[in-house]
């Protein structure tokens, strides 16, 4: 199956197709089953609280193998919170409490006998702001395998593989020993992706990975996501609807509902469907309003 790489211009919205969805996906789009046939992860009745604050209400989602799932919605709708639940990064937030299940290949990662450290080696994460370590490019990649005690025969080879996998090798192969801080923002973000794939995860979570990048760097990261899809399951939070339309196979639309008494906004899942349906034929009025720019 050939994947047409997304480019910066291809996603330009037209009058007939405000989201620019058809322009990218068109005929090259993959035929997907209505429900992910091979679910890798599953959130079931997921509720998240920060202290007394109910941040996310009853989210049910299924993430299919080798698919890109986008979580979109207005600010404060809980999409990043949901993402952080998927590899237990929310454990690190003081006062955060998770109810419900997150199943990874059928194992609830919130079960008592689950080690969150082990969860994170299988479910990697790329953050909003590129966050390379203050080390050399080589050591940034080698860090994950080293700390997790991964058996590595040839670290040099693994570093090269990871950098090639993140389409960064040609740009950095002559300066592996130099500080990662010398790279541009887009390169740093691809280094963070390379660092994540070096630990051979199964799922990669991306929390607005392009929001700090310029359009050219963004388009390169998007191309990379489409390439990585054949080996990994990718879940991405994005504020950019064109980005969701360009790269994702399925989209989950979240919104925030204010509590009647306290006014606290609780995030909830409105609609989860194939991206093409969300953008061309949404079932819910709120999704339609958001997609067409009437709110959010």
């Amino acid at each position, binding site marked *: 199956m050939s994947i047409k790489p997304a480019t910066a211009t291809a996603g330009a919205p037209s009058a007939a197709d405000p989201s620019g969805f058809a322009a990218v996906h068109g005929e090259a789009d993959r035929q997907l089953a209505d429900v992910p046939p091979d679910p890798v992860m599953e959130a079931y009745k997921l509720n998240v609280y920060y202290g007394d604050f109910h941040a996310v209400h009853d989210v049910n989602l299924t993430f299919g193998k080798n698919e890109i799932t986008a979580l979109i919605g207005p600010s404060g709708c809980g999409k990043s919170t949901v993402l952080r639940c998927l590899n237990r990064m929310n454990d690190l937030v003081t006062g955060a409490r998770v109810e419900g299940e997150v199943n990874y290949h059928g194992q609830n990662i919130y079960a008592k006998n689950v080690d969150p*450290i082990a969860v994170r080696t299988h479910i990697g994460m790329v953050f909003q702001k590129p*966050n390379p370590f203050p080390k050399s490019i080589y050591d940034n990649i080698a860090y994950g395998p080293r700390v997790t005690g991964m058996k590595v025969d040839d670290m040099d080879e693994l570093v090269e593989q990871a950098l090639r996998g993140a389409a960064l090798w040609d740009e950095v192969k002559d300066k592996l020993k130099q500080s990662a801080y010398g790279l541009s923002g887009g390169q740093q973000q691809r280094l*963070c992706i390379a660092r994540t794939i070096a630990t051979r995860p199964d799922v990669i979570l991306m929390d607005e990975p392009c929001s700090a990048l310029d359009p050219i760097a963004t388009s390169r990261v998007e191309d990379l996501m489409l390439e990585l899809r054949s080996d990994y399951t990718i879940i991405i939070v994005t504020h950019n609807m064109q980005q969701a339309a360009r790269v994702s196979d399925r989209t989950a639309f979240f919104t925030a509902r204010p509590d009647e008494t306290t006014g606290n906004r609780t995030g909830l899942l409105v609609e989860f469907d194939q991206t093409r349906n969300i953008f061309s034929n949404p079932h819910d009025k709120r999704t339609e309003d958001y997609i067409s720019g009437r709110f959010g």
Partner: protein
Amino acid sequence: MSVAATTAREVTTSSVATGKSRDRSVGSLAFLGALWFSLFFGVMVLVVLILDTAITGAPRFDGALITDYSSRVRPESTGFRAGILGSLWLMLFTALFAVPLGIAAALYLEEFSDGNRWWNRFIELNLQNLAAVPAIVYGLLAVAVMAFMGFQRTGIVLGGAIALALLILPVIIITTREAVRAVPQEIRQGSLALGATVWQTTWRQTLPSAVPGIATGTILGLSRAIGEAAPLIIVGLATGVRFDPEGLLSEITALPMQIFSLTSQSQEDFQTAASAAIVVLLVMILGLNALAIFIRNKFQRSW
């Protein structure tokens, strides 16, 4: 051109081009003058003090000052060998005791403790208080610690180092916490998201990034400790020591102690020697501070 535009321009011109600056009004200038005077006064007192000490001590800027032991019979050539060596030994062991403890305590408070628990908040509050406790109290504490460990004589390297280590421990903890806090949260999250443990993240990411800040704080703490006499007097360090320190249990004196004892002597030569020793002590302190500044500038990281 409309009337409104013309009016607006006239108003703007006359209200901006006033030909004088309100920043140079009498009140502003008087305030500026007061600031200058305060600065001048503060610096001048210090300069006069240092110059006066240096001039008084000038006749004794010789080799014997640092190579000879103290002498009561020959005040004109009394030396501070024992004090200088004693102070250096004290600094070494003070750092050995205080630095690992201080860094460990700071790392616990910053990286591992739950700041919402009452006992952690209690510890934090008391750390701030400890930094303000008079130095003499740490001397008493050190005597108690020595007695608890079964030592009869407390005026030894171990006793002095314990007193000074206790004295600078709060300073080291506070500066280490600040240095650790300055490491961005993104670095920790990046490490944890790769499957590193909190311990690995602290040891391999946070701590190395915080080292320049920790080193600076530690050295500034030591430069405070090297000038302290009060806790060492309580611990019972001697002044008339005429041998080099040999180990943790050897009796010593320290430079500030020797200066303190000489200034109470009446002979002119002792006063001169004391002034010269003060200059030596100042050079040691300024050297430490210069080292701290060097480390800060050399290894400072901008995130």
